[in-house]
């Protein structure tokens, strides 16, 4: 497995923008679940702010910040790819559309609501904003959507279909979902997150003198073989297997099992969840490693269909 360099990062969280601010705020305790629209405004064009779905706006801002952080404008547009990861998709526009259909019938759908209701809309907004014309895709896999998006991005690099790939993942919780969950007996509040990492090959980063902030050392996924089982997560053994497989794939037998891993509740407080927060957890893990000077960490998660994914990250020589 080829390690990839990480040359750009961005993180949006209810407590702030940027890994450093988020880590500091988390250390003080965290209960917030929603990202305020006001923090996005400086990063959005008027038409983006007006038209895009709640999730798309958040992902768009994260992608822009990460791409700028990596200095991607120096690369040819057709060699820049984009992968979106989301567990819930563009629920705001989907809800708008369904509400309109229920109230006014099939003949009166809002065309703009439809276009922006698909998961692929977020990728469209991001590629338009970045001018990225390489391969793009949206990956949907519940609570491991972020991790799986990172794996898809790494594969694009490995196959040399791109020189750099922006992997952006997250989820957003429109007001309708917040009202709906208690009525369905849900006990957990949806949290919002959007984060991005820019992956490049080691040679590519060296060639354009980019400064890596970390490395993607290995990754793995273990798929479940049972059907949907409600809100139950994958068995801990499956997560363990995914983690061990990622470490093996990286050839890093020396990784200490106690390396930091972020539990979802660390990010949003007790009882909250954000399916697409895998890339956010990766960004925060990298920041914690940076503060330590060097090291490796894995970001691993199971999802309620029984699958698990793990991504191994490193800073420094380890």
């Amino acid at each position, binding site marked *: 497995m080829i390690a990839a360099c990480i040359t750009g990062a961005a993180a949006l969280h209810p407590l702030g923008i940027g890994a450093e601010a988020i880590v500091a705020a988390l250390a003080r305790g965290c209960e917030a679940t929603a990202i305020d629209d006001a923090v996005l405004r400086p990063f959005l064009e008027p038409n983006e702010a007006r*038209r895009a779905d709640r999730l798309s706006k958040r992902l768009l801002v994260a992608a822009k910040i990460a791409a700028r952080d990596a200095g991607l404008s120096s690369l040819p*547009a*057709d060699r820049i790819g984009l992968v979106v990861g989301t567990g819930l*998709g563009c629920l705001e526009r989907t809800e708008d*559309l*369904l*509400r309109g*259909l*229920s109230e006014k*019938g*099939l*003949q*009166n*759908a*809002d*065309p703009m609501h*439809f*276009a922006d*209701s*698909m*998961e*692929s*809309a977020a*990728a*469209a*907004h991001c*590629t*338009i904003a970045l001018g*990225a*014309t*390489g*391969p*793009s*895709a949206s*990956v*949907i*896999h*519940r609570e491991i959507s972020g991790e*799986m998006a990172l794996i898809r991005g790494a*594969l*694009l690099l*490995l*196959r*040399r*279909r791109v020189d750099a790939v922006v992997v952006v993942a997250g989820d957003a919780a429109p007001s309708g979902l917040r009202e709906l969950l208690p*009525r*369905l007996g849900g006990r957990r509040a949806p949290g919002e997150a959007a984060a991005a990492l820019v992956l490049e090959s080691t040679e590519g980063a060296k060639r354009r003198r980019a400064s890596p902030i970390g490395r993607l050392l290995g990754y793995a*996924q*273990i*798929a*479940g*073989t*049972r*059907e*949907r089982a*409600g809100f139950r997560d994958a068995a801990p053994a499956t997560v363990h297997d995914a983690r061990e497989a990622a470490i093996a794939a990286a050839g890093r037998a020396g990784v200490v099992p106690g390396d930091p891993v972020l539990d979802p509740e660390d990010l949003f407080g007790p009882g909250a969840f954000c399916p697409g927060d895998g890339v956010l957890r990766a960004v925060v893990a990298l920041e914690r490693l940076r503060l330590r000077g060097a090291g490796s960490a894995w970001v691993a998660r199971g*999802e309620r*269909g*029984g*699958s698990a994914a793990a991504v191994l990250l490193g800073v420094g020589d380890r």
Partner: protein
Amino acid sequence: MTGGARETPLAVTGMGTINALGPDTATFWRRLVDGGCGIARLGEPFENPDGLVAAAVPDPLPGEPSGPGHTRTERLAGVAAEEAVRASGLPSRYSPRRIAIVVGTTTGGEREVESAFTGLLSGRRGPRSVWFRHDKASVADVLGSHFGFSGARFTLNTACASGASAIALAADLIHVGLADAALCGGADSLARVPISGFRALRALDPSPCRPFDRSRRGMSIGEGAGFLVLERLPAAESAGVEIVSHLLSCGQSTDAHHVTAPLPDGSGQARAIAAALEEAALRPEQVDHINAHGTGTPANDAAEARAIRDTLGAHARRCPVTSIKGSIGHTLGAAGGIEAIATIETLRRGIVPPTVGLSEPDPEIGLDLVRNEARGGAFRVALSHSFGFGGGNAVLCFGRRAA
């Protein structure tokens, strides 16, 4: 891939489909070649005061392998995947952990969620379980559970290019060694959201669609599923299984232009075509046939035609092109999988099916369009185009044998 190095072909050892023309590949292909059309007035359970047409899979759906407890998209996927896996003999030849599943879908369980949401607004709570059906990843999980495959598993949404993108990702997984084989393709079912959405965008033809026709007015929405089984060529040859085709390459690009409309000059699509040719180390004149995206919308058909002319040059006028969306409608996330099967059958049988609905070609198109009746020939290499809403483009290149 860069540098002109030739991609190692993968073997296609199984394929399966269900769509408006039939519940299996043989029926689908026979009716396709005969110029069949599965597009008719949209009926129950959809209200249809405008008399919209669509390509619905006739009910009742075949019962296996999934049943009434599953969403319609899952059931369609199950039927197609069962045919593909049975033809390939896959389960007996690989460890389940080495068989990947990659599914492209745009609607997932949307049809079921729509009904539940309407009920919820009326104060009816309904079963909790239905809310999981918005979850598009469940299609891949149902297939994984049924077949016992626990290898790499992905669900993709690149709009209308989802099925082809899924096949491209599956190929990547095998090439890098994360899987030995893959079940891949797409599935989608009719639902009020896409029907009303495309209608609101004025993208639907009130009659059955007419790809590349001078009078074309839009697409006809459809549903179905199409899956392939891919594996490494040497392994398939050693096992002595029937190899129905070679997947030579996958070219992908993004328009980065508009959330719905394609680049008018077709340049994004052209880059995907060029990438597929480069990866397969093929010259444009080696392409014997193109199964076009050909939705019947004024914008797509014009852009696609330009992309073909720009990449194939003079050869564009000699390369037979067809669109099967006049027969099965635009099956959205399933299109890439179903149309890959049609492309493979063209190579196997030496027949290009006609573009149903095409009576007077738009003179601006400037391609060798197959219409009125099927056309025979010796076809060794063919492209299958899928160009999605939002600008995602995927081109699959198949060969009858390594070219």
